[in-house]
């Protein structure tokens, strides 16, 4: 159990994945833009450099809360990772763990808002407000899209959803609309490029994280990268579960390939789409994504019974 929590598929494996995914992501974006991109050790160098820098805070900021918030975000993501299987290996599982994972994955959005709220600065507060508005736009379609596979398989446990796909076929094949919506929701959740409204550099400097430096910034970046990894692993489990088609190949490389494919989707989206305005995102979320997600759930009820 301790091995599962600390090494595989727990903390150390996730740390490694966070670095690898960060590098692959930046490298793919660079290739899309016709450049070479950073060397393979770049995320490690960034992560070592940041804690060795001075830890500054503006006057009037509660130091305890500022130190606790990034840790809380990281802890929520790591706790969620306990229930997300990696190639069939999972540290803990029970009926209903999907709901717990979704709840834990939405906690970082709250800490991100609070980080902007406690920082005494216009850009931070503006970024925090934008992050909350964005949260209300993407979270509902994302939750409904992720509930699709659960409705289809008649179970709220990630392991049973994976097992259901082993009997039938990939979730993404049965509910392509739900998969697309889940990817869009994930982009919003991770504040990645087309939906990086809360931390848009040319508008609000770095959003909530403007006033953070040193080891707190390193923790924020790590929690963001780990959230990317856990979110992608969750989508792989829900929409590309083990299928009979791949039975000949060992599970682990196939799982890695699926995860990297979803990362490629995210990198493509950030390379080809420009940033949306916050009102455009609210429009998109409530007028288009949410009704489509509802449609997918109704269809799933029809198929799954």
């Amino acid at each position, binding site marked *: 159990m301790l091995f599962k929590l600390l090494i595989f598929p727990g903390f150390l494996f996730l740390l490694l994945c966070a670095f690898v995914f960060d590098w692959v992501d930046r490298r793919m974006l660079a290739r899309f833009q016709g450049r070479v991109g950073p060397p393979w050790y770049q995320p490690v160098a960034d992560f070592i*450099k940041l804690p060795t820098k001075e830890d500054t805070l503006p006057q009037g900021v509660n130091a305890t809360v500022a130190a606790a918030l990034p840790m809380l975000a990281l802890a929520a993501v790591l706790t969620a990772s306990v229930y997300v299987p990696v190639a069939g290996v999972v540290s803990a599982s029970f009926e209903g763990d999907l709901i717990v994972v979704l709840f834990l994955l939405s906690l970082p959005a709250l800490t991100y808002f609070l980080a902007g709220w406690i920082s005494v600065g216009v850009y931070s507060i503006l970024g925090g407000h934008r992050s909350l508005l964005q949260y209300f736009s993407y979270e509902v379609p994302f939750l409904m899209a992720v509930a699709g596979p659960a409705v289809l398989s008649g179970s709220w446990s990630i392991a049973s959803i994976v097992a259901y796909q082993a009997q039938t076929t990939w979730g993404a094949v049965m509910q392509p609309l739900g998969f697309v919506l889940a990817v869009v929701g994930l982009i919003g959740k991770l504040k990645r490029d087309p939906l990086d409204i809360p931390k848009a550099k040319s508008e609000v400097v*770095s959003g909530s994280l403007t006033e953070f430096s040193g080891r707190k910034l390193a923790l924020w970046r790590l929690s963001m990268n780990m959230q990317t990894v856990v979110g992608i692993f969750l989508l792989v489990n829900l929409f590309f579960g083990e299928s009979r088609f791949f039975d000949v190949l060992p599970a682990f490389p196939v799982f890695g390939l699926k995860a990297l494919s979803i990362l490629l989707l995210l990198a493509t989206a950030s390379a080809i789409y420009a940033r949306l305005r916050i009102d455009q995102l609210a429009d998109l979320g409530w007028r288009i994504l949410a009704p489509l997600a509802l449609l997918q759930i109704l269809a799933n009820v029809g198929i799954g019974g």
Partner: protein
Amino acid sequence: MNIEVALRELLHPIVRWARRKSPWVLHYNSGGCNGCDIEILDTLTPRYDVERLGILKEASPRHADILLCTGPVTRQSRDRLRLIYDQMPEPKWVAAVGSCCCSGGVFQGAYNVLGGVDHVVPVDMYIPGCPCRPEAIIDGLARLLELIQ
């Protein structure tokens, strides 16, 4: 206490390596003509791809390691330059980009100009040129990284 010193000695090469491989820059124009700013933008475009060296342009002073200054320091921007420099967390470095930033250039002696950026903040690397080419900026930054201990 000795263990702490020994640990610091042991970690020093790793920390130095990380600092040399991950310099994040902040760009501030303290009153120039915009020529050098365009060259800095050039440097950050895909054609020159400074992300190969780990260089990222950050928007917040709190995230930056190197302050890229352009233009001479005018009396109006002196306090802002000082504020931005003070907001950056230690250890930090300053690179003066362009002739005006190095010495005041053609604006030297003007009633509203203090002179080069070294009148206000300590400068670690001077990159002359009017405006300096992106190759010169990359070369200057690479030499600045070699100086990092």
